[in-house]
């Protein structure tokens, strides 16, 4: 008899993928300006470290919150005891107001329809448990966040069927691709329970267009048992036009005459917009009472610490602060993205034009020696080990075309980013020279690469090819 569960012994957690291996390499040899200037620079982690000072200065001005006090009175006891899965009302109110503000107050959210969870990781898994039985599927446009394989499939037993998007139209979702994905699921005998999108997109860094959103809403409108989940975790990181359009705005515009409001659900978190991934603050928003009821009960398995709810209820309840924060944060992200884009340009590398997110979707197809995922892996390893940058290969995001990489820009100082761009430029220059001389000498390009260490296991290697 097998000692552990199937879930424990399989690898559906997805953590053998290159996405996570890159992290491991970084952890073994992390860059530090002083102590390890030749180390690997972490550019595979979508963190927002640009605006902590704003949070810190708010804390300095609000000492009561720090001391578990409200109006001078200690509320430690009440907070320590507060485990109600309905969540702290003042926090939920502050959170929905913040979400509305991010959307330019074009939509509002009802605090009674918010379910708090331990991060978006938990929110997404919980929604799957609520909407899909084991073996049922959700359609996801590629490329998508590698963690979805774990969050949506691992313990739930749900399946993901990709909606293949390509660079030919900047990876936008087309009706053809959507229908093809649906057919693919049917061929595999999978019942499709809905579509899940990340908007703004990870890893593309772009906001979804109105036409894409309407396309999706039309799609689920037809099929009466399908849902649309919009993971809007990056909604506060939109720094230039076109602005952010939430699916909730689309529903409002359509007056929800289709009556699909109870099949559309939004996921949110403070991990990216506020840069607080450690606090584990996620949320599910749904107009569907049954979903809210079920998800609320499930949130028992991952509630938000009351101490954290309290801190954030005060912070997000300070409207002057949130207004300023949203604007300033976006300004800084824009500036940082510009820095990266121009640094990449200097290296002869372009990227998808983006207006959001904490990363760029970088086009390195011209650096591949062949249009294959194998070549992408070779290039990736060189970049990790030789150039010393941990970036995420497109294959780990299930991209259909080799040569794309996600590179983060908001989790380091400007100096580090400058250094990273410099390293990349040097690498490109060297590679070009190497290639030229190899061609000149009649040497096969492949031979010049054999000295690189291939770290992926053979299983993972096969997985890369299957994508």
């Amino acid at each position, binding site marked *: 008899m097998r000692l*552990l569960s199937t*879930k424990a012994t399989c690898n559906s957690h997805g953590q053998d993928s290159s996405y996570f291996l890159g992290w491991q390499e970084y952890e073994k040899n992390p860059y530090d300006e002083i102590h390890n200037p030749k180390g690997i620079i972490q550019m595979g982690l979508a963190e927002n470290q640009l605006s902590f000072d704003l949070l810190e200065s708010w804390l300095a001005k609000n000492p009561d919150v720090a001391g578990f006090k409200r109006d001078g009175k200690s509320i*430690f006891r009440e907070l320590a005891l507060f485990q109600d899965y309905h969540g702290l009302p003042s926090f939920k109110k502050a959170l929905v107001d913040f979400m509305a503000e991010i959307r330019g107050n074009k939509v509002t959210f009802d605090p009674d329809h918010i379910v708090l969870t331990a991060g978006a990781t938990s929110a997404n898994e919980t929604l799957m448990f*609520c909407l899909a039985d084991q073996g049922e599927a959700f359609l996801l446009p590629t490329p998508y966040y590698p963690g979805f394989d774990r969050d949506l499939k691992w313990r739930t037993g749900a399946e993901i069927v990709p909606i293949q998007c390509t660079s030919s139209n900047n990876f936008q979702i087309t009706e053809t691709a959507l229908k093809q994905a649906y057919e693919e699921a049917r061929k595999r005998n999978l019942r499709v329970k809905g579509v899940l999108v990340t908007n703004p997109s990870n890893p593309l860094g772009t906001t979804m267009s109105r036409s894409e959103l309407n396309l999706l809403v039309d799609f689920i409108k037809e099929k009466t048992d399908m849902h649309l989940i919009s993971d809007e975790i990056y909604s506060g990181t939109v720094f230039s036009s076109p602005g952010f359009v939430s699916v909730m705005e689309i529903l409002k515009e359509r007056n929800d005459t289709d009556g699909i409001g109870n099949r559309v659900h939004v996921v949110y978190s403070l991990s990216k917009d506020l840069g607080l991934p450690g606090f584990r603050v996620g949320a599910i928003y749904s107009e569907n009472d*049954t979903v809210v009821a079920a998800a609320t009960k499930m949130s*028992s398995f991952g509630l938000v610490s009351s101490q954290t709810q309290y*801190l954030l209820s005060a912070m997000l309840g300070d409207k002057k602060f949130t207004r300023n924060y949203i604007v300033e944060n976006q300004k800084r992200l824009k500036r940082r993205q510009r820095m990266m884009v121009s640094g990449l340009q200097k290296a002869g590398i372009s990227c998808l034009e983006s207006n959001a997110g904490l990363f760029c979707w970088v086009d390195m197809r011209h650096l591949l020696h062949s249009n294959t995922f194998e070549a992408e892996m070779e290039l990736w390893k060189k970049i990790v080990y030789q150039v010393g940058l941990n970036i995420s290969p497109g294959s780990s995001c299930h991209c259909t075309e080799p040569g794309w990489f996600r590179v983060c820009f908001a989790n380091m100082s400007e100096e580090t980013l400058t250094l990273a761009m410099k390293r990349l430029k040097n690498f490109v220059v060297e590679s070009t020279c190497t290639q030229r001389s190899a061609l000149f000498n009649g040497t096969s390009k492949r031979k010049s690469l054999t000295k690189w260490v291939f770290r992926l296991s053979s299983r993972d290697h096969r997985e890369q090819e299957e994508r």
Partner: protein
Amino acid sequence: MDFSQQLLSKIATSDKHGENSPYFDGWKAYERNPFHPTKNPQGVIQMGLAENQLSFDLIEEWILSNPEASICTPEGVHQFRNVANFQDYHGLQEFRNGIANWMSKVRGGRVRFDPDRILMSGGATGANELIMFCLADPGDAFMIPTPFYPAFVRDLCWRTGVQLIPVHCHSSNNFKITREALEEAYKKAKEDNINVKGLIITNPSNPLGTTLDKDTLKSLVSFINEKNIHFVCDEIYAATVFSSSPSYVSVAEVIQEMEHCNRDLIHVIYSLSKDMGFPGFRVGIVYSFNDEVVSCGRKMSSFGLISSQTQHMLASMLSDEKFVTKFLSENSRRLEERHDKFMKGLEEVNITRFPSNAGIFCWMNLKSLLKEPTFEAELKLWRVIINEVKLNVSPGSSFDCSEPGWFRVCFANMDDETMDIALNRIRAFVGKETKKPVGLKRWQPNLRLSFSSRRFDESVMSPHSPIASPLVQAT
């Protein structure tokens, strides 16, 4: 209804979360009419909530003296960004060290815990579900002695698809978990083609409030070892053992003396919700002696990590030796004192309880007040207690107890004055009941009144929170 069942998953639309049971009447009655000493002195007193509210002052004192433990104070804010950014599922090293230190102290220093085996989860609720996902497939079963914490049905079974096989224990031998009962339950499961993956116990016990003696614990370890099944010990009440009681023996201690035990089968569940009174901070811990479980469980902990703000605060608190020693001894002393006071009050009306040496509740026997020895009569009595006596207590049937008439009542979630009022009400009620000519046979000196279902003190409805908590009212 049918459409909804197609639209959502089976899990979402089933009843397996266990929250639709009739026992919610007690909670609803409390929520509709919560006791307040001045604003609502005739309201229902909450005795169904296993909370430890006796030692907050000690913690508040520590917090005031250690401002650097908070990332929000001027003394601590320099760590804000690093802590706020930290989402590593290994958890803060200092936090794990603190937890390992605390857990060891709770066990009198007789066991050392390895910080690298400590996994985080969303409270013990999350921890219990997580360990099931690691050890069992849907359809597999875990054996569980009765009476047991009602919300285990949700925590262990709801989303995991695991089933529970009750191993019935009886008052005739003090609810002891016998080898015979285990063997019988195991054998029957095998005959029914059920794949038994393990045994789960709560020690100290909820709702009994007792600790297992070393021999019994050893016999359980032998049993699971022999059958090559897992042993999950929920030790959430470990630090609630009374000062005057013999020391608490954890499974971690016992296996140190059992060389032949396969440690890959041993797992401990823990939390700070009861010992420290912090249910709001969601500190759940899975500690496994099995490397594979640690590795897989750590990845799964992504679904319920502890807020880094909370980890950081507790890291220094739990590593403060002086504080830990003082807290543990004072907390046990206060719990025992409260327990004794409550017992004395009950004995004055000849109500007795199962002798306990731990926990924050009593397991009481009201058999003599039942009209007949049935669960229907138990429920009837329970409704009378809620609606007329105005105490929310938990009937034994909600704990899957094999005999009617037992009730769990919590005593550590209120102040002294409220407890006095509760006792008065009980005295008045029993006095009234015992004067009735029918339904009462003879005095049973060991009557127990046990009024609480931990199912309800969980986040299921958290009755103290939505209505009575000032955090709710202030908004």
